[in-house]
């Protein structure tokens, strides 16, 4: 598969703050590439650089074979950007907004009108298209926000947290639209801090935190990174030194008096470990088992949980 987006050694600082620190990634044509990270991880800065809004301090971005530094305008013509904010004119109707945004991409006349109609159908907002955006619900605003980035039928779509702050039903509708777009061969970069979204729709995921990509690959590849092991947390009245021997060769993730977090191959190994606890007469108050997932990957590669 050809690589539509190639990013090399990309860095950007704002004063003392190093927002993006020499990241590399490539996105293949027709792929949904997820950027998973907490707020302030550098996702939006990366999107801004990909769209040519911010100039990188160093590194290069090639989109559809064009260097963004020298072909910014041509690149932006094939990009569809859906920003985090509902960046729409609330006074204007949904249709009027789409006519404006489509116009900015050079569409005019019947072509513009047809594109707007198609985009409205895609997000199922044709019925409300003549109402001012300010009268829309949060979910509808998100959908029309998405629509405004798609009206010119872009080849590449950059979605920056498109489901921020909406109800589950509206989120499902947006994710369906994104999947549909991918089905039509669009190349998509999708930033989110929702693990389940990344798991659900992304072909490949890059885990980004503090401006650095810590890991990237398909979900399976990422899980493999943590060894495909389950994470077992045991709590109770025991000392850290008391249990160290019981663990044996298993990899300890965290240990302190009263709590042990350890990576085990499977559930059978868990039973064996607990058996050891009981044999040694150690008090066990609780056991939590976490199957290998993106969350555990995130925890593994960044050293912290993705809470928001």
């Amino acid at each position, binding site marked *: 598969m050809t690589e539509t987006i190639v990013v090399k050694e990309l860095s950007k600082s704002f004063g003392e703050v190093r927002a993006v620190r020499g990241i590399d990634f490539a996105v293949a044509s027709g792929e949904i590439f997820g950027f998973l990270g907490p707020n302030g991880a550098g996702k939006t800065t990366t999107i*801004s650089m990909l*769209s*040519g*809004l911010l100039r990188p301090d160093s590194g290069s971005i090639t989109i559809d074979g064009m260097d963004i530094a020298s072909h*910014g*305008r*041509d690149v*932006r*013509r094939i*990009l569809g*950007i859906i*920003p*985090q*904010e*509902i*960046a*729409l*004119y609330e*006074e*204007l109707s949904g249709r009027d907004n789409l006519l*404006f*945004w489509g*116009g*900015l*991409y*050079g*569409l*005019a006349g019947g072509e513009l009108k047809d594109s707007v109609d198609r985009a409205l159908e895609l997000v199922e907002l044709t019925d409300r298209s003549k109402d001012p955006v300010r009268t829309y619900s949060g979910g509808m605003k998100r959908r029309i926000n998405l629509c*405004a980035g798609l009206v010119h039928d872009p080849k590449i779509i950059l979605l920056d947290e498109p489901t921020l702050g909406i109800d589950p039903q509206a989120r499902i509708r947006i994710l369906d639209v994104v999947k549909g777009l991918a089905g039509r061969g669009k190349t998509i970069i999708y930033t989110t801090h929702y693990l389940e979204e990344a798991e659900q729709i992304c072909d490949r995921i890059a885990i980004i935190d503090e401006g650095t990509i810590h890991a990237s690959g398909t979900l399976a590849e990422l899980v493999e990174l943590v060894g495909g092991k389950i994470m077992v947390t045991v709590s109770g009245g025991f000392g850290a030194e008391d249990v160290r021997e019981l663990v044996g060769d298993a990899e300890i993730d965290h240990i302190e008096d009263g709590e042990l977090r350890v990576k085990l191959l499977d559930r059978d190994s868990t039973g064996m470990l607990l058996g050891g606890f009981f044999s040694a007469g150690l008090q066990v108050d609780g056991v939590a088992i976490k199957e290998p997932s993106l969350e555990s990957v995130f925890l593994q590669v960044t050293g912290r949980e993705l809470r928001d």
Partner: protein
Amino acid sequence: MRRGRAWTVWKIAACDFRLTMREKSAVLWIFLMPLAFITFFGLSFGGGSGRTPLATLTVENNDGGFLSADLVSLLEGENYFIQMSDTLPDGADPVRTLVIPEGFTDGGLGRGKVELVLLRERGSNENAGRAASAAVFRSLARLVSGLVEIEDGLIREGSESIVIRGDTLYGSLLIVSKDGPGMAAVVEQRMDTMLVRPSNVTVRSERAGRGIEIPGGFQSSVPGNLVMFVLMTMLFSGAAITAERQGGLLKRIGMSPAGKGDIVAGKLLGRIFIGVAQIIFLLAAGKLLFRISLGNDIGGLFLLMLAFTFAMGSLSILFGSLLSDPDQVTSLGVITAMAMSALGGCWWPLEMVSAPLRVVAYCLPTGWTINGIHRLISFGMGTAAVLPHIAVLTLFGIVFLAAGAKRLKWDV
């Protein structure tokens, strides 16, 4: 077929124009408030009549004789609205009052000493006050001239009650009027005859240039308010840029194929559209509603105002680039608009200010615009006369625009 950069600029401009025109408050400020201001200030400075404003002069007549009555009628001939103090409602506060003392007629006829006082309220219109003073002086001069002529006539007729012996005058008109029955009426009648004679020496006033013949209050009120409101409309529009930045719209436009130059050009063009709509509306209202003259070269006037709109639209982009809060832009806009209007000559004629302040006026776009308007409307000159003005305003615009574009930020 996808359109190019000009189309993008047009779309941004059209969108901004449309958004502004949808705002009820904007429409009120752009079209209706200027009309209210023009009406208010126009009426305050004489309305539509070409004559000097009819100022009010209150007369406190403590005399009751015919001379004081003649004085009042002479003042009425001086284009004053005379209001007698005893007819004023309770609590009324007269602005300027002429106090005619008791015994004015007898004193005047008898060559006794009499003093008239013109009391002017603090803060009352300086121009009207000075004009009132001159008018009272002229009326008195005509009255005294009449008295002297009557005295001279009686002396020539050989009256025994008023004679000149050697270098001394004996007797007076007061004595004459008490000479016998009907003499007082004779003196009064003679005075009336004198005063109704047309003056032999008159002044014919006209205005220079080929411009307006009869300026009225609206004639001075329309240009000043036109400039001030275009300035305000432009400066306040800077708030929309900050609001768009806050809402993420500016950033989104920045992510589109539109370059920074296209965006700035579009934003400026949108503002110019609004300014042009306002200029056309106010000039039309000036012509049709307030019946003012727009000079002999409407094209030149439009070009001058267009250059001013360009300069101020550019300044609004600079404001929008420098400030982050729409409220701040609005407040700074009010202060800047006030300062530039006042110092540029929109509030009062520049001839009244000191020489250094006249220099200050020419450091401001408003000063150049007002001067250009005078050349076109007051003097009836053509476009060539305001080409330097248009060039200076364009230069202002380029400087503001370059600074605004340089400082334009996408994010808060």
